[in-house]
């Protein structure tokens, strides 16, 4: 159980450890702190977005021990000691991952607000299933709502990446 500290007004906070993108952070959080807010406000990792805060839109998607979850439904204290990957952890040393490059080249990004969550869902899919069918791609991203693209180019981008391409077929 994480160490708890109570201040003079009786407010309890917990000292938790979050491994975010390979960096270990020790943060002080209240019990009711939501993981999305801790990532955005305390760690300044604003790539994870808030769209609905109720687990319906997927723009807050992070990988928790490699699995995509809606961080808006996860208490920070529940993530204590666990490995979190946010969108900021996808590129390596500033080099975009294939899925990111593919999404740019396929024009799978419009307003970009769903993009971080979409990239993480797609990356997690390709990690566990390097050769997904179109149906499997759609299933994997069905929890990421996009209002701009109709998902057409997004699905193309993910399938292309799975085929080892980052540029469209018609290029």
């Amino acid at each position, binding site marked *: 159980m994480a160490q708890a500290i109570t201040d003079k007004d009786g407010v309890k906070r917990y000292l938790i450890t979050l491994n975010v993108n390979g960096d270990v952070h020790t943060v002080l959080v209240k019990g009711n702190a939501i993981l999305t807010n801790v990532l955005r406000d305390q760690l300044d990792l604003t790539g994870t977005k808030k769209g609905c805060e*109720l687990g319906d839109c997927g723009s807050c998607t992070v990988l928790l021990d490699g699995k995509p979850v809606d961080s808006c439904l996860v208490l920070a204290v529940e993530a204590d000691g666990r490995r979190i990957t946010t969108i900021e952890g996808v590129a390596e040393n500033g080099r975009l991952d294939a899925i990111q490059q593919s999404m740019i080249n396929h024009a799978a990004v419009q307003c970009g607000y769903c993009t971080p969550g979409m990239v993480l869902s797609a990356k997690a899919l390709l990690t566990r299933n390097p050769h997904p069918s179109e149906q499997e791609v759609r299933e994997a991203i069905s929890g990421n*709502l996009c209002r701009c693209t109709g998902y057409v180019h997004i699905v193309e981008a993910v399938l292309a990446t799975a085929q080892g391409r980052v540029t469209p077929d018609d290029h």
Partner: protein
Amino acid sequence: MSDNHSVIGRSVPRIDGPEKVSGAAKYTGDLKFPNMLYGKILTSPHAHARILSIDTSEAERLPGVKAVITHKDVPTLKYGLSPARWDESIFCSDKVRFVGDKVAAVACLDEDTCYKALKLIKVEYEVLPAALDFLHAMDEGQPQVHEEYARNINTEIHQEFGDVAKALAEAHHVRTDTFVGQRTYQSPIEPHSAISMWDAEKLTIYSSTQSPHYFQHYIAREFDMPMGDVRIIKPYLGGGFGGKLEPTGLEFAGAVLAKLTGRPVRTFYDRAEMFAHNRGRHAQYMEITTGVDKNGKILAAKANFLMDGGAYTSLGIASAYYAGALLPLTYEFDNYQFDMFRVYTNLPACGAQRGHGAPQPKYAFESHLDNVAADLGIDPMDIRIINARRPNTVTPNDFRVNSCKIKECLERVRVMSDWDEKKKNLPLGRGIGVATGSFVTGAGYPIYRTDLPHAAAFIKVCEDGTAATLYTGSVDIGQGSDTVLCQMAAEAMGYRYEQMKIVAADTEITPLDFGAYASRQTYMSGAAVKQAGEEVKRQILEMASVMLGLPADDLDCDDGKIFSKSRNGKSLSFEEVARKHFVLRGPLLGRGSYTPPKLGGSFKGAAVGTSPAYSFGAQVGEVAIDEETGEITVVGIWDVHDCGKVINPRLLHGQVHGALYMGMGEAVWEEVLFDDKGRIKNAELANYRLLTALDMPPITSEVVDSYEPSGPWGVKEVGEGATNPTLGMFSNAIFDAMGVRVNSLPLSYEKVWRALKEKREREEDAGRERDAKRGAGAPRETDAATQPVYATPS
């Protein structure tokens, strides 16, 4: 015309792509400022109520609360987006008019404290009866939403062109159909957010805005400040679709909170608050009458509409005019009558949503046209081709159409979708439907009366020419305007896209642009950008002419190289010429601006719907209906568009996909639902059903080769035009699959199931056998409720 362009016409990657895919892109809600506070607005729980008292004392005492404001603390000047109707207040003082109306606001150290503080504000209401049904809002004895507007009439329109009565009397076949649309909401994935801060007398607001200019204009007006002292900055923006076009309580209240506390204040809406703020699509009740000749050629049309405006006007006056204005675009007829009432109700205010007032009327018209086609035994594709507008024509309501390839769009989509084969052979339960659409390429007139240009741009080439920065007031809301305008700037200069930089949407830095609405930016902002680029190129060629000792008109610049057109030989790089220019002549700058020509007729409301150019498109959809459950599976969608010259093909098709995605959602799956107290039942994304990746069918999108002579490089719009046909297309595809029509949106599974059930019961009652197949041209069964009216020949 030549099509050897170096930059435009290529699917270059988005200029903001890397920022967005890496999470580096900062949206308004991502921004943090030193000493920043958080602000939230207290809203009304009642649809209609008098405010008796507001007690903020307990909220003020809560630790962490830095300011609490009500109507006493803010300017009382009424505002709104439509100058003809300023009917909103920052905070309600006498009464609240919808569940979600603004009552007070707090600024606190953190978000949590804001929610707690709001709960401590005590408001005493006297609940009043509410007008919740727009179909009855004008009836005698209905609660009045605004005392000044009798019978809750917000906008009343009566227009007639040609001689409708005569044309109908002479028609071979006259028919009337009635349809009802539903309220939908843009629901961009990024919630509204604003950060306000003061520096002495200067106000800066970062906002999730589609138009920094309109925000600047209306906020300066509200606070009685010179516009130059109001700075509006748009960071990255996560979707607007028309809902972020006007300043909201977040900006107005946020600015006051920031002034009172002397600290930056970030105000924001959560998803439920977004639904309440709304400014989404108006529900419309639509009666369409046409008279056609024996070939199905439309001789006259009448549109008699009623639209639900909600509690305030927003951009609704324009919406009301657009509802009728765009109907005569895709089909040519000379006699047209349009009557409309936009009414107030005690529900969230409606405004402009992708397609702005036009998609539901188009749904009605396209559905009606298929009914007419069925009455006459004409194929729906053929009846549209017969009526398709030709280029270089004028609509009955005085819109001049230059380029128009609607006929080619229809012919191409017919082939692409395998229309004829499917029309003959699809079994019952499978159907195919077609609809056309059209939209303005920018509005001919601005939202408020002004003689300022609609767009302006400048380009600064850096001192060594290795980069050029485009400064534009235009707004990338996801549609890709930053990218497309950089392409246009590079093309105009003869420069390379990859070296372009852009600064956009900051009223202190970038020149005037009206922003992202009415699909105006590629054309209008693009025209200004092209002019600016050409000015740079002129200076480059002049400088190069000196450097090369050749006449400037013998030189050209392309892909960053200056060369002689007539002789091979030395060429210069843009960089070296630009640098030389800076050394000898100072900064290398280009300026441009755009003002549309005077457009339109002189009748009341003539301005709305005017545009320098119109896009056209045709969509076909194939559906499969599960008769036992009513579930609709979309088998495929084909879209062919006439949008003039395409600057970036991939981005363009992305816009088509997105536009028809929204139309598709509104056709079957989306509806904002209210309880009997005017509260939204589904103000969240589980029950307001945005379609997921699993719901989407294969989509094939093409454009026809087209060129709009009035636009830069021949461009037209696409962002809203591709929503225009979708509702009608679904209505027709489902009709084709079932043989019976659902006359209201959304065309939900349950309505489809019920229509089929009732049809089955009617058939069983009549003892008729049902055809399993249909031959081409065989008479369709028409729904008993929509029997046509035959005109008596005179």
